[in-house]
């Protein structure tokens, strides 16, 4: 038990997420208890509107939790300053960046901001990390391109490289596969798997690509109307969790192939 605890990098205790309004709290999900291990690829799945983004936004401190605890390396997220958090956790969001007028290299270099001095000078070490991130994500050939010249798939890789350059133990990605074709969806998720294996980072992403996630993830978090379940994909299949994901009138989960079938 103690040995396992050492490996837990992110943990929630009785976490409730949602939106605070003046009159009442709009609860999106409650009683969330998840434990994420170091060096694992974790997929977060669930139907539209179930609260995947809300959960991720709460975990990365973009929005406050309603109650409960979030612990990163056993430290309460509410007690962690943003400057400190920037060295522990990096993000890739669905929102478009404001300016696409930066070169790929400049954009990836922004990932070094938590470590550079007040004017943002890059040290030799920073430059090495930036180049390594570009290599890991396989976009060294793009580094002098402007971001507006890139395709959606390339841009997603650049944003992942930027998160890599931030050199944090955890990377959180909100739906990194939207707007991508089938090949690039698989490519991005495979890339995330490779990054966890080669760098030992913990990567948490939300996605609608349940079938790909089942094949690639070490752990999956499934959000249903009643519960948030965190387990290995094969256990989730044998427990029949995926069948409870969607209403059963249209699609059905096939346990033997690990994929969804349209009901005839």
């Amino acid at each position, binding site marked *: 038990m103690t040995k396992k605890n050492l490996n837990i990098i992110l943990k929630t205790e009785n976490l409730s997420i949602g939106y605070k309004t003046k009159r009442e709290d709009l609860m999106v999900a409650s009683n969330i208890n998840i434990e994420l291990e170091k060096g694992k690829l974790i997929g977060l799945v669930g139907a539209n509107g179930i609260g995947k983004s809300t959960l991720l936004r709460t975990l990365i401190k973009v929005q406050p939790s309603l109650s409960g605890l979030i612990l990163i390396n056993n430290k309460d997220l509410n007690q962690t300053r943003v400057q400190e958090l920037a060295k522990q956790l990096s993000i890739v969001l669905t929102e478009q960046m*404001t*300016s696409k*007028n930066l070169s790929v290299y400049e954009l990836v*270099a922004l990932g070094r901001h938590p470590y550079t001095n*007040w*004017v943002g000078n890059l040290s030799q070490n920073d430059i090495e990390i930036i180049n390594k991130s570009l290599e890991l994500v396989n976009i060294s050939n793009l580094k002098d391109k402007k971001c507006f010249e890139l395709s959606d798939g390339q841009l997603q890789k650049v944003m992942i490289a930027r998160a890599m350059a931030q050199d944090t133990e955890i990377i959180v990605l909100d739906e990194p596969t939207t707007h991508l074709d089938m090949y690039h969806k698989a490519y991005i998720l495979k890339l995330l798997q490779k990054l966890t294996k080669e760098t030992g980072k913990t990567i948490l992403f939300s996605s609608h690509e349940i079938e790909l996630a089942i094949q690639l993830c070490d752990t999956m978090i499934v959000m249903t109307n009643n519960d948030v379940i965190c387990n290995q994909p094969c256990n989730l299949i044998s427990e029949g969790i995926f069948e409870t994901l969607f209403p059963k009138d249209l699609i059905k989960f096939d346990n033997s192939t690990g994929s969804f079938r349209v009901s005839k």
Partner: protein
Amino acid sequence: MNNNKTYRIHFLILLIVLLLCFLVNICLGSISIPLGNVIEGLFGTLENETWQIIIKDFRLPKAITAILVGSGLGISGLLMQTLFRNPLAGPFVLGISSGASLGVAIIILGSGLFGGVFATYLISKWSIVIAASLGSFLVLLAVLAVSSKVRDTMAILIIGLMFGSITAAVVSVLSYFSTAEQLQQYIFWGFGSLSNLSWNELSLFFGLYILGLFLAVFSIKNLNSLLLGDNYAKSLGLSLKRSRLVIILATSLIAGTITAFAGPIAFIGLAIPHLTRQIFRTSNHRILLPAVLLFGAIVMLVCDSIAQLPSSDYVLPINAITALVGAPVVIWLLVRQRKMMF
């Protein structure tokens, strides 16, 4: 970064052009002074005493004012465009110039209310400078107070515009009750003017400008993070509220001082960042900020030289010239490149 070398050439050219514009600006005026004599005059070794006085007490302060005004407005515009993620933002979106206008309008147009001798005493140059500073400072305080309550950056933009509308309305009401002479005086202030600053006024101007510039340079790194959007910036360890405050303070210091001393000079603040982005083709503030500084100074010197109408006694309102010269250039650049850089 990796293509620093090409930018070095850009900067060298800009510096040389700035120096040339500076000298030519001093040469031109109601009487033209040859370039050689101007250089002697700058070192104070000119034999022609009239020319020496013209250069030292009139043209040199005016050229320096032009440099401070052009570069300052350009930088404030750049800060506002990045902070508000809006290419239409300029140095005055926070209502700084409308605040200054209100202050000046109360002094000039409302002076009838104070009556008699007191009124003429009020309308001195310093009182206008003080009224303009007070006006913009009060509007700024209001915007800052509101912005500390509001989490959304866009809301601050709208609030700034609303403050502008309110002050504009008050100015309208005041002008409705004013005499023709008072109105004329107010309109003349609105034309903007780079001349008539004494060395004392100029040194105060310079001090405040440097303070604002220091804050702007201090924000370069944060401005670059903000290019990714608020959430990314926060994930990079940026304290949003604090950096927003520093950026707004820098802008108000620079733009407020400029409006107080030179009037509400339009257009430069909006256009210079766009022109610079088109030429330098980057959004990286480490390059943009110094480039905007140099470029703004050059454009203002050129505009001022044109406004002087060389070899005549007429001086056109600088505010008209900046837009007359600048707007076609921006249109031409955008049409030619077919793509706006932001």
